[in-house]
């Protein structure tokens, strides 16, 4: 009893209502965590340690609106499809990352794409194809044309990034958030233009 009231009496963190859920997918070692950390903390971590599954949350201003981004950094090495499905189901948009200096990682994006489409059952799911490690152009194995061709085929955007130099890092996250946002607006328009329940709730709170 005591504990319960203790918990409940704690102030609820006042946070923006809109949360965009982004999932980082891609083979192991392509720099998913590096991109995430660069975006979150403006840091580049050189040491490589395989991720299991980490989630991050950050308050950002997207086109003048304060929103939250929830990033799920998944493990490239996750062996179990059933578990991976559960990760993917929680996402609203996907950054499918490969390393431009590793052809294999580019090939793997095909599998990830298929899996995501299967799980989300949505051809137009917000999705960006991301070629990371653009700073290491001299070791490039995947040509830009190749990647663009695949992006065109999937009807998605292709962006080359460098977690090290922070090139295009913010762009991929913001572009994806915009896609997610427009998808959400489309969805709410479809349901008779009704504002989202959560929004109305929050509005009431403010008035009170």
């Amino acid at each position, binding site marked *: 009893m005591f504990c319960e009231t203790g918990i409940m009496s704690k102030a609820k*963190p006042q946070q923006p209502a809109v949360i965009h859920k982004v999932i980082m997918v891609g083979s192991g070692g392509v720099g998913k965590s590096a991109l995430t950390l660069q975006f*979150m903390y403006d840091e580049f971590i050189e040491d490589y340690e395989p991720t299991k599954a980490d*989630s991050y949350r950050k308050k950002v201003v997207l086109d003048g609106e304060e929103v939250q981004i929830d990033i799920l950094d998944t493990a490239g090495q996750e*062996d179990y499809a059933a578990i991976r*499905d559960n990760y993917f189901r929680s996402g609203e948009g996907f950054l499918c990352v490969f390393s431009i200096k590793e052809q294999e990682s580019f090939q793997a994006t095909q599998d990830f794409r298929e899996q995501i489409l299967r799980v989300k059952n949505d051809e137009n799911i917000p999705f960006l194809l991301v070629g990371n490690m653009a700073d290491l152009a001299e070791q490039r194995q995947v040509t830009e044309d190749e990647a663009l061709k695949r992006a065109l085929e999937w009807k998605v955007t292709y962006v080359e990034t460098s977690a090290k130099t922070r090139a295009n890092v913010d762009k991929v996250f913001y572009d994806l958030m915009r896609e997610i946002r427009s998808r959400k607006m489309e969805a709410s328009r479809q349901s008779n233009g009704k504002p989202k329940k959560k929004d109305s709730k929050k509005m009431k709170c403010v008035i009170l």
Partner: protein
Amino acid sequence: MGDGLARILAKPSFEPESFIAKLSGEGEDALLDMRTKVHMLNDDTAQALKKNVYKNYSQFIETAREISILEGEMIQLSHLLSDQKSLMSSMMEMPLVSDRAIVEGLKGEEEEKESPEEETRRNLAFLLEKVEGCSSVADVPGRQLVHDGDLVELDAESHAQLQRVHAFLLNDSLMIATWIPNRRGPMRYRFQGLYELDSLAVVNVRDTGPVKNGFKILMFPESHMYQTDTAKAKRQWLDALEDTKKKKAVKDKQKKEAAMRLAEQQLQVALASPGEGDLSKSFTEDLEEEPVAMDRDFLSADWLQELPEDLDMYIAQRNFEGAVDLVEKVNEYLTGCPKGPALKEFRARIDHRVKQLTDGLMNELQVSPERSLRGGPRAARRAVTQLIRLGKSAQACKLFLRNRSAIIKYNIRQLKFEGATTLYIRCLCGVFFSSLSDTSKEFIKAFPGHYGCFSAFVIWAKQELQAFVSIFRRQVFESKASLTTIADSVQLSKNHCAELNAIGLDIEFCLASMLDISIQQVIEENRDQLVDGIFYRANDDLWRPQNHLTQVDCEKYIKEIAAAGFDIKPFVLEKCFIAITINSIQFAKSIVMFAEDLLKLFTTELEEFIAEAIAAVYRVQVKYIEDSLKNEQLVKEQAIILKNAQFLLETVMGKIEALYSARDLDLPQQLQQINAHNRKLRAMVRK
């Protein structure tokens, strides 16, 4: 008036001195008046006091009685609870034992860690006692507790704190239980959810916002976020989850490989015998085709999910019919279910309950001192019917018969032995044989079509008969009862046996063979006694005719003997003399009675023996007559002796022959031979 005085005296501000002073001032009359009033008040008070004491006393007694009743109930309740507790603990232990075999086969290294594992198992039992509604979780064999701890559940979106939970990481799944705020009793948590580790996605939530030490559990469509107190606790949780998932994956892989190997072997066997090839091939394919999802879907029906609890409830309510109905329903349903691990788990849960149910039903049939046996066979039928429906006809049969044995024993013990053996035996036979026939009728009703059980019944009947015979023997043969009593008793039981023939149970021959030896013994004894009697009487027999002094007395005597079945009129000499001696009359009476009794005991097996016994006695008597005829001193009496011989060999033998023919039997050879002696004796005299 009296009331007024009482009120004055009872006032808290009452001052005796001023009261007396005021009273004494009013003169003698007032004083006397007051005195009588005080006396009256005194009496009234005493009476009231007495009444109150009685009232309280009766209330006290009533209360005491209530308390003693309550105490008795409490004791019963505590017995019941301790029974259930032991049942629970035994149930907890049961699946663990069967699990041992699986674990042993799979992992060598696990054997080394046996003792700590044992401890976690006990932990599981202990912890699950604290969680409400998790019985289905505890049922699964082989589950162990790996890690547990208090967590705070957060809203996955807003990260707002929702509630306190306690999480239990088991070796194959994660169980979440919510904290019960106003708990009563030992239950501290309420079961919220169970997530299989196979597809459980764990997310480490980095400490980016105001929320620290969080992690998420994704299990589509649910996702939950939890928070630990410390970073270390979170680390432990994540490591434990990761570790357990890995271990489970390894184990599953091994199992799968083993299954594959088995399937391959089967395939090879199938290939070797081409006829069955297709069949087993399709079977192995079935095994590989993602069985998990299929059987899970199959089992997701609401009633199936609630079935274990419903069964528990029915068992607790002793609604055995309902429980068996459910079991039958689910069995029928599950036969169509694809095979897979979820089904196996579900089966294990159901089987566990079926076992409980069976135990309950068996307990119903169990003979225990605190249960009354007066329910009769019909009371047992209910439990028996349900057991048969559960496919436990053998146990049901065994218990049913055991129950019946106890009832028979109890009923026999209720009989009081009141001197007369025949009366007691009549009651005994009545109780025993009616129980036997009740049982057989009930048995036929309860086990229709279970012919295997009928042989058990026949064996049982024979055993019971044996028990009956041992009582019978003790009461009849060992109590030195007269031959007549014995014969009557034996005949009585035989008649009862014959009645059982009507329901198709022939145990007469069993009874006869069991009693045979005792009967032979008793016949021999009686025969010897009769022979001794003949010798004894011969010593002082002077072969004098009976003198009844007057004709009237003589005729009275003749009538008396005629009542015993002998016509002695032809043997009357000169009004009041009868040629037949008392000795002969006595012999005639005893031999006829002997023959009568023996014929009651008649069986084909004993035919020879009986005839021989009668003949033996007869022979001794005839020999005695012969000796008497040869005796020089008795030459004068020869006419009388011959008359007596004629009486014994014609009249008495005729009577015995009549007894035989009354049973549609011929006079045996031995006795016919004796009859021939008549002529021989006459010839002796003529010589």
